[in-house]
């Protein structure tokens, strides 16, 4: 369309420039500060030009802090969360769309309800449950009176205990208990041509074969989108890994980074070191966004529809 919209275009360009400045400014300052020494920062405060201490600071992060071990934890949590979410969401959406499941809509609604109350809001009692995953079974045994019976016969009631706190499984499992993935795959399955199943059945493909040979290859882009989305979600989690890990060696990198600042009043924290830590901790997800941008955007758009 040819028209004169110069004033608007000028304003729009200025808006975009300011927006990018807002995003990049803090990241740039993180980078420049991570290249200074502690003494330099104390003397000059925040500066816009880089210094020469970057590698010294990064080496200190790797040798003096637990960030390397915690990065490994973050990787396990993020990859585990993403993989398990992809697989479980895929098969449950498959079951809900391609089979006449009784109460299917109720099941789907109960899965979707997880989006409304995120983990951070119910962290206290999720922690309680994680400290003994089998406690619901104990409660059930108590309620139906079976435990009284068992106590009468064997002399003691059954008390099952299994804590998943401070384990990788415990860090991952509550993150997986989320409905976005199922929602995303369901939306994708519903827009597939309806003749797909008919044709597959005519060719003699059963449900399992249909799943692996037809649905799986078609779903590859959705998998990539969901994987990127959940990986970033797992990597950037804070509250759950903070409470679910009791030793620094089980904490994730983001938690470790937040613990680098001393809690003492009146002491200027070693900001160059902390900023170097922030660079190290954020580099994997940022590279991932830069490279897999396409899939991230698709994932964000799909998770909304």
């Amino acid at each position, binding site marked *: 369309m040819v028209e004169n919209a110069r004033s608007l275009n000028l304003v729009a360009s200025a808006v975009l420039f300011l927006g990018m400045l807002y995003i990049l400014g803090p990241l740039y300052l993180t980078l420049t500060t991570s290249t200074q020494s502690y003494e330099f920062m104390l003397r000059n405060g925040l500066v816009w030009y880089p210094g020469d201490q970057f590698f010294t600071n990064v080496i200190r992060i790797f040798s003096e802090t637990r960030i390397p071990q915690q990065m490994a934890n973050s990787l396990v949590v993020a990859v585990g969360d993403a993989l398990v979410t992809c697989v479980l969401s895929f098969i449950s959406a498959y079951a809900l769309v391609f089979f006449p499941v009784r109460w299917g809509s109720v099941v789907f609604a109960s899965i979707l309800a997880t989006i409304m109350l*995120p983990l*951070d809001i119910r962290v206290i009692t999720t922690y309680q449950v994680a400290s003994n995953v089998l406690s619901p079974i104990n409660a059930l045994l108590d309620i139906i009176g079976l435990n009284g019976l068992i106590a009468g016969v064997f002399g003691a009631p059954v008390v099952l205990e299994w804590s998943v706190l401070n384990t990788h499984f415990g860090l991952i499992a509550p993150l997986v208990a989320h409905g976005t993935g199922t929602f995303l795959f369901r939306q994708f399955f519903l827009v597939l041509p309806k003749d797909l199943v008919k044709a597959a059945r005519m060719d003699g493909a*059963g449900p*399992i074969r249909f799943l692996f040979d037809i649905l799986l290859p078609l779903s590859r882009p959705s998998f990539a989108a969901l994987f990127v989305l959940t990986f970033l979600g797992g990597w950037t989690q804070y509250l759950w890994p903070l409470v679910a890990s009791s030793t620094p060696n089980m904490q994730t990198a983001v938690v470790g980074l937040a613990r680098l600042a001393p809690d003492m009043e009146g002491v200027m924290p070693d900001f160059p070191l902390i900023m170097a830590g922030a660079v190290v901790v954020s580099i994997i997800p940022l590279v991932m966004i830069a490279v897999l941008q396409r899939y991230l955007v698709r994932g964000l758009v799909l998770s909304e529809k």
Partner: protein
Amino acid sequence: MSSPTQALFANRWLPVLLVTPLALLIVIFFYVPIFQAFYWSFFLERPFGGGSIFVGWANFARVLSDPQFWEAGKRTVIFMVIGSSLAVLVPLILAVAADRQLRLSQPARNVLVWPKGVAGASIGVIFAFIFNPFVGILSPLNQWFPGIWAPGIDGTDAFIMLIAAHVWSGIPFNFVILLAGLQSLPRTMHQAAAMDGAGAWRRIFDVQLPLIMPQVFLTLVLEFTESVTSAFALVDTMTKGGPGGSTNLLVYKIYVDGFNGYDLSGAATQTAILMVFVVLLTGAQFAFLGRRINYER
């Protein structure tokens, strides 16, 4: 949900088997914790273990008579309203700008998604440094006007810092959704409006914005929940609820009461109240705003 697919596989146990793993995780780590929050809000844990005793509404009475709870609740609502309005408005303006064919549009679309990779806690640590009153970006201001910027003492300054970090983190999702909404509008709408003599500015307000109201509404709903819950990482890394409780949001208070104060019943009661609040809020938004927007389209 009766699926529109007519040809279904008639298998009875396979679908149950396929849904079970996820359903089991969701029951254990979603529904049981929610149930427990309500359970503990009516029970008091006996000191030194040994089960629980039913106390009726006593926990609620205790929480609701605590001025700190109301203070934290008020802060939460203020943060929610200001934080989420800005966290939708800023990406909305950026999306309208990025929707135009400009030289900066492409790089902006790329860069504005980056915060998705920076954890809330990381950006909290970074902003705490950038806005540090002694070495941060505003420290020169303090040399000219001593004490004008002091997030460690002044609650309003700390709150501004919190909002700035919250909006920063919220840009990617809202920007992508709103931009996708703008790009899905048919070009013919623009052309028709232009033929009728609507200039480029006018079309933003009379064509684009009304038509992407569903997306604006959706981001706002999600943002409300998000701002209530995800502020924890920011508060914990930037202000620890201070100074003087001015940034002590409910989600942070619950954590402190539960994990530092060992007040399980009190924390569970507040959790229950907060959950009811979030669910009612989401429901209300869908009931009122949602219907009106559909009507206007």
